[in-house]
């Protein structure tokens, strides 16, 4: 089981990056998912969507090179690549909700074996709002949850989410530092396991019922 925090995060983002295909239009959520961009394989050309209003999000500008009129969806200084396009919020969510986004990668507070996702509020405690998350999860062709497997030792992958949902039954894939899980009509299937990790460890850290794939692989990270 991987213990080092940085290594955990690296495993997650490296593995998520391998899910992306050449030509994909991808939205990377704030926080951990953002870092996926640094590990996209050679020869895979993806276009990044920024829900504040453009496709073609580029790397973070160097200090001094910032343009006050270019920020990402977290209001951090950003840049655009050649061939980018800016538009208004209606078009931004036409792209998202209309099924034009190939992949969305988001974090989660909880996710369950039916593909339900909760990532926008803890009643009475933290209510940041859903922002664009509900549209992203409903609209994207593929929804990948990228997160640490547990929070303070508590399972986040559950039989049934008990926090308010972001969307019902929309999650396709969960990538954590312990493995890769796919939501299928039969249930949640562990398809890959992280290096230095045992199936029993994954099961003990997961509240959801896990189906272990017959051809279980080791994550290539």
């Amino acid at each position, binding site marked *: 089981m991987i213990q080092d925090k940085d290594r955990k995060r690296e495993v997650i983002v490296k593995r998520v990056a391998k899910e992306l295909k050449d030509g994909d239009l991808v939205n990377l959520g704030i926080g951990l998912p953002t870092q996926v961009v640094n590990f996209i394989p050679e020869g895979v050309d993806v276009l990044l969507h920024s829900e504040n209003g453009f496709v073609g999000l580029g790397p973070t500008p160097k200090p001094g090179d910032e343009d006050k009129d*270019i920020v990402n969806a977290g*209001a951090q200084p950003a840049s655009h690549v050649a061939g980018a396009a800016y538009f208004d919020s209606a078009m931004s*969510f036409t792209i998202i*909700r209309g099924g034009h986004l190939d992949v969305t990668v988001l974090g989660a507070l909880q996710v369950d074996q039916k593909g339900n996702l909760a990532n926008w509020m803890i009643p009475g405690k933290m209510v940041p709002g859903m922002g664009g998350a509900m*549209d992203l999860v409903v609209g994207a062709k593929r929804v990948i949850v990228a997160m640490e497997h547990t929070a303070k030792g508590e399972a986040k992958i559950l039989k049934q989410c008990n926090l308010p*949902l972001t969307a*019902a039954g929309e999650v396709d894939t969960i990538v954590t530092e312990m493995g890769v899980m796919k939501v299928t009509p039969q249930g949640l299937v562990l398809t890959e396991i992280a290096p230095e990790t045992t199936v029993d460890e994954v099961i003990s850290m997961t509240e959801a019922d896990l189906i272990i794939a017959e051809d279980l692989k080791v994550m290539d990270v």
Partner: protein
Amino acid sequence: MNKIKTLDQALDYIKDGMTIAVGGFLGVGTPEKLIDAVVAKGVKNITLICNDTAFPDKGVGKWVVNKNVSKVIISHIGTNPESGRQMNAGELEVELVPQGTLAERVRAAGAGLGGVLTPTGIGTIVEQGKQKLTIEGKDYLLELPLKADVALIKGSIVDKKGNAYYNKSTRNFNTLMATAADLVIIEAEKLVEVGEIDPTDVMTPSIFVDVIVE
């Protein structure tokens, strides 16, 4: 018809208790001079329609901090701790709306539509109190128009008739808000003569704009 006014003249249109739609995304594309003038005037009980409450020292976040706002209709308040504090203390009413739904509700008001059907929010608490319709076997929520008394928007380049151009990621909700308010005040980052913006490149036609401030 001269639409160009001083900040003071523009503020005459803004009264306590109004519903005000403001352009911008986390403060980018928000008319900061108009925001500051509303704070200085001490306007009270604003119902704010905006994407987010930005930051305590930026954009409409300043209205939250200065208690100009009693209700927000918004997709996100997480970047402004004061919004959450006021909400939990019962000082600020917060109606959370998914960002894409917010855009469509404002657009519907501007476009004369009675509502739109969106799949966003199905199976979540966003469903509460809303009519659900099934179209070809798929469930949708009926989301209703969202209209404001006044919209405050910010243009990168604005001509003296009110045609506006937004540079890069500053466009966001600006045109949408302009279509859905009884009165629209635009803050021009750069004010130019009529004809200096190519008509093909105009992003908010002048017909939506009532007042221009520099």
